């Protein structure tokens, strides 16, 4: 008797959550899978009989067919790879560094500093992007700072030059070597692949590192505080210096948190969207285009919903694979 009423209550209690997640998450994913196999242009229902079924065309147009869709997609992948390569290490190192300093036992007023570092993380991504548009504006704060030390700051959001290209330029390589310029892979020349993040992308990278480090610092801080004091004292007695202690004692002890921070970092950096939407819309010269933004733009601006959905699923796959690879790598090291 009681178990039956309990069973009923259980189902009633979870029903709203199950219903909403089912209708607005599971069902739409299935719908999008179907749409990614069609040429639906947004008119009427995508499930009418008149909608052209194109099979895997939307997917192959991203990988094997020469043309603008593949070029844009590969450009967005390139941009996001550079973005991940800079943001993930930078935010992890900054977060760990700040946590180590805040965790020093002799310092007072830690609460204030912890709050200050964490505050940007809780604010609206759109509002913060507006602030950073001003900070990196032509006549903005960063260029004023650079001007004060005699550097002529770039026009950040109009500058599509890749960082590696700029560095090569300083050692005299202004024109791409023919070997790189004349051979292309997946729709982009080797020269384009090795461009590095554009100057505009760097401004977005700075913004993101600035906003996310606070959250990760809190996670590291919680982990550091969980390390028993004896461990640290023992390593002091053994004569380990600061660097050795960090490398051989502290980091191994906070490995689970390190894994969490790296994983969350990888997952979120492949999803960068709000900042791109507000600050650059993929410009200049498509150097801040990312798969997430490209998928949105393809569907809602170019009305190619099928290809947009296909890009979403490829992005989904990339994120899943990244997470699995990382999990596997950290497991290997442990054993």
């Amino acid at each position, binding site marked *: 008797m009681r178990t039956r009423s309990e069973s009923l209550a259980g189902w009633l209690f979870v029903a709203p959550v199950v219903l909403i997640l089912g209708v607005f998450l599971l069902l739409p994913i299935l719908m999008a899978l179907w749409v990614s196999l069609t040429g639906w242009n947004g008119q009427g229902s995508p499930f009418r009989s008149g909608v052209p079924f194109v099979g895997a065309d939307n997917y192959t147009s991203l990988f094997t067919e020469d043309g603008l869709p593949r070029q844009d997609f590969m450009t967005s992948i390139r941009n996001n790879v550079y973005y991940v390569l800079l943001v993930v290490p930078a935010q992890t190192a900054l977060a760990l560094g700040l946590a180590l300093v805040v965790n020093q036992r*002799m*310092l007072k007023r830690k609460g204030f500093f912890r709050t200050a570092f964490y505050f940007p993380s809780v*604010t609206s991504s759109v509002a913060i992007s507006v602030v950073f548009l001003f900070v990196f504006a032509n006549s*903005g704060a960063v260029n004023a700072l650079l001007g004060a030390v005699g550097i002529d700051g770039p026009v950040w959001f109009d500058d599509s030059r890749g960082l590696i290209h700029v560095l090569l330029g300083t050692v005299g390589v202004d024109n791409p070597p023919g070997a790189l310029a004349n051979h292309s892979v997946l729709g982009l020349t080797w020269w384009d692949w090795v461009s590095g993040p554009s100057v505009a992308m760097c401004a977005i990278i700075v913004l993101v590192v600035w906003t996310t480090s606070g959250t990760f610092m809190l996670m590291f801080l919680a982990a550091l505080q969980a390390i028993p004091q004896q461990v640290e004292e023992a390593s002091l007695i053994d004569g380990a210096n600061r660097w050795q202690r960090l490398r051989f004692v502290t980091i191994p002890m906070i490995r689970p948190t390190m894994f969490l921070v790296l994983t969350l970092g990888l997952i979120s950096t492949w999803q960068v969207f709000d900042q791109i939407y507000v600050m650059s819309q993929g410009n200049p010269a498509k150097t801040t285009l990312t798969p997430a933004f490209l998928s949105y733009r393809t569907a809602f601006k170019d009305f190619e919903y099928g290809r947009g959905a296909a890009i979403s699923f490829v992005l989904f796959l990339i994120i899943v694979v990244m997470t699995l690879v990382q999990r596997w790598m950290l497991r290997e090291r442990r054993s």
Partner: protein
Amino acid sequence: MRRQPRGLVNTFVGYSILIFFALVFLYPFVIQLANSLKTEPDAAANPLSPVPGPVSFASFERIFEGTDFPLWLGNSLLVTLVLTAGRVFFDSLAGYALARLRFAGRRAIFAGVVAVIAVPGVVLLIPKFLVLNQLGIYDSYTALILPIIVDAAGVFIMKQFFESVPASMEEAARIDGAGVFRTYWSVVLPMARPALITLTILSFQGSWNEFPHTLVAVQNPDLFTLPRGLADLVSGSLGTGTQYPLKLGAALLATIPVAVIFVIFQRYFVRGATEGAEKG
């Protein structure tokens, strides 16, 4: 004795690093406030200065009279209140059932909830649009609210919480003959206050700042929330000039509610962030 000078140096270096980074993390907000109170030429000439040349409230007047800001504010308040109330109610209900009630399918549902947390939100944009379109609720308050009125991460937090408190009180209530919902409402929820506050705050912050969902849920400017309206301002609906004081002011006003709540309920934010860390 020998350690004393080294300790002093360490303390000095420690504080220097902390103060430097506190400036890096907070000064952009100072710049934002200061420049929203400047005239446009002043903001362009002295972007770094924390003190407006002449203090000017012109940008705030224009925010309220020359833009749809009041409308966005109203929409944001409405949507955020409904979303927060809904998430707290539905998430805690489901969290409780998954932690305490025995029913067939419980494990499967919990596994589903965990799987949903792992789905990256940004790949759901087109799918969400498709279902809203198909159900005929695209471009409505329903579209802004209903799809995100439950939150899998909130369910997870509440389940973990209910599992961490002893069940003796509710068992006593049940023996006294109270029904499951009655027990939940008058015995369990009052005990769950800390977790409910955490969930309320995280839901408020998440709903207030929500942006991508509004992109695929509505296109009618009458339904814009603050982040959406702000994004629209930036993309050039203002007409001529950069108008940074106005944009910074609007962004500032949109930040204030979450900032105030953050300062008051800081430890709950911290708990929300570190809870994630412990689960990983």
